[in-house]
């Protein structure tokens, strides 16, 4: 092979390699992408039962019920609808009634949401930012005051 042909071959090999990597990457990407929903979105029935997704909302006060072992049930609500959530495990430190959480899991045929992970990372308003965003109305405040934080939110400077 001439020098030029060698170089072309090397470039072709590189492109094939990169293409393969990109294809693999995007497949993995599509498979592992999760959308974020609110209870109203789920009750609208557009998502398939059993699909893995993230559900965000506020934990309704007084709804948290402990069961056998580590079983826990609670109701997750946005401003309009609510949905029973079932979880088996340890709740995060920041989990509180009346505050926002994000649950990863899937909708069951019986209308409950089975969570395999509960996240409660949140900002100073005790809301995960996605939840705050999803619940926001025009004036920038949360629409569902009754659910809003039980914790005293100090005025920020």
């Amino acid at each position: 092979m001439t020098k030029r042909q060698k170089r072309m071959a090397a470039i072709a090999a590189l492109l094939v390699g990169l293409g393969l990597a990109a294809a693999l990457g995007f497949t993995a990407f599509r498979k592992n992408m999760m959308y974020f929903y609110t209870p109203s979105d789920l009750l609208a029935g557009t998502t398939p039962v059993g699909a893995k997704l993230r559900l965000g909302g506020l934990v309704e006060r007084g709804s948290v019920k402990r069961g056998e072992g580590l079983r826990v049930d609670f109701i997750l609500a946005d401003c309009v609808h609510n949905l029973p959530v079932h979880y088996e495990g340890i709740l995060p430190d920041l989990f509180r009634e009346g505050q926002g959480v994000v649950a990863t899991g899937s909708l069951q045929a019986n209308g409950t949401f089975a969570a395999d992970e509960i996240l409660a990372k949140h900002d100073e308003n005790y809301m995960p930012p996605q939840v705050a965003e999803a619940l926001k109305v025009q004036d920038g405040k949360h629409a569902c005051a009754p659910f809003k934080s039980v914790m005293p939110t100090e005025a920020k400077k």
Partner: protein
Amino acid sequence: MIPELGHFALILALGVALIQVLVPAYGVWKRDARAMAVATSAAQTQALLVFISFGCLMASFINLDFSVAYVAANSNSELPMIYRITAVWGAHEGSLLLWVAILAGWTLAVSVFNRRLPADITATALSVLGVVSVGFLLFMLLTSNPFDRLFPVPQDGKDLNPLLQDPGMVIHPPMLYMGYVGFSVAFAFAIAALVSGRLDAAWARWTRPWTTTAWLFMTLGITLGSWWAYHVLGWGGWWFWDPVENASFMPWLVGTALIHSLAVTEKRGLLKSWTVLLAILAFGLSLLGTFLVRSGVIVSVHAFASDPARGVFILGFLTTVLGASFLLYAWRAPKLVSEGEMTLFSREGLLLINNVFLVVASASVLLGTLYPLVVDALKLGKISVGPPYFNAVFIPLFAPLLLMVGLAATVSWKRAKAGEVIRHLRAPFIIALIAAIAVPLLIHERAPVAVIAGGFLGFWAIVTALQEIWRRIRAKTGFVSGLVGVPRGVWGMSLAHLGLGVWALGVTFVSSFSVEKDVRLAPGQSIDLSGYEFRFEGVEPRTGPNYDSDFGTVTIEHSGEVVATVHPEKRLFRATQQMMTEAAVDHTPFRDIYVALGEPLDAQGAHTGDWALRLYYKPMMRLVWLGGALMVLGGLLAATDRRYRLSRAAESRVASNSVVA
């Protein structure tokens, strides 16, 4: 008074930084030696002013001056002294000041240790570092001044984020920033090379120790961060593919590629424009990381600022710096002609392939990190990409890298002979394969294919690294003289590769043989996990300096003997009313036992009733961090190799002569 002094020093620093940018640049343009010489003194003055400012903020924290808004937001009269000091970088404004202070430190180092560089290179590099400094000083003064006063002065501060009240947090941010900011030096040298049009072996030799030093700090910072997350976040994981972790991992990957391509540029005069591009990218990703963390566009423990103006500023700065660099690159890089030919089966060829893999890996992290942000910005819904994506992409990208690490020392520069390579590597191959099958069988009595594959890659990297050292020693007559005769550069490379192997072993074993269980236990009750008997002795209330704790006691027995008594804790910080999990870990080199308290499950009371507990058995967990530590040690040895120290004078003489000629 002290805060005003700090603020004033910061403003002065901005002025001096502007001089540091403009005067040397004019000097390089007009070839005016006096103007170029201003760079050094301006850099040193600026560093002094920034350090004064940093000292003032620290003094405000130590004195608990709650009239400073930033101190009031991140400190409390009950906060122990050590955390008062580290609270300086506990949130947005202060961590920016730390960023600028570390940049000033690196700039100072360049101005002191590179006196023998050609004057125009030093002047250009310091001017570029000045541009970065101006950007960040402006950012701080315009959007996030740490010295802003607060009126009325509050009675007490709000306290430091409890997650950050941990020894791991004391040194993790400075180390990581040393790495982030350190890449700005490689970037400045790259720009200097583009401006001067000179990129030779001498340039690579100046740039290598700086880059390696930045890289080793970054490695240390990431390792510490991982260790912190492991025992503070209470989930027992050591890497979460959190966007902020990714933000530090991307420049690390590209920085690793840069270290390797610099070797090719130094030894063979090849890949010149590629090296320059990597230097620009590594710094660009550092800036992007800062943007991601500081702009509040991502949800994370680290993302404290959510003021859009800040994000816009950093994004604008990022665009300007990178845009200008790429323009310069497009204009000047074609002049950086590589000498000589490259064959694929040679050390430089393999290093090029290693670079491609590292850059692709970095790009895939970038995709997974930014894609959700882009989708969100375009209002196409909110998505998240979980760890499965990153794991699926990373394993096929890292396996070939580990295979190639084994070839590193054996394959020679220019053109390697396949027969010789195979002869050399036959023994390590067989040893690694046997170890990969035998070790899991001996410890865990089973060896799934995934473990054999991962274990083989790990042992392969370890055995070949040791082989290289052994070969160097045997080349000399006596063992001791051989040991002393091994150059630090070779030690560095071998130790870093050994570290990679150790890390891979750790990852393989932890991910395959970990056992975890969330359980409900009553006081006095016990449960078996992987042959270990965990007895929950109960929880008692305790009082810490600024928190109240539920102090648990768990006794761990193995074949009838008490192995350890551990104390996992739940801490409720009084000022913030935030709950923190303090996991308890009992570790030997070969296994970790990890116990975290979940929550009290009985209404009857936290101190008598049932608790949720999280129990883990994690074999070889320590190897993950030991691997990181070995890489850091390797970087340290490589950066201090004597040829960088001795040859500098000789080199710059040669370099300046060639300029005159």
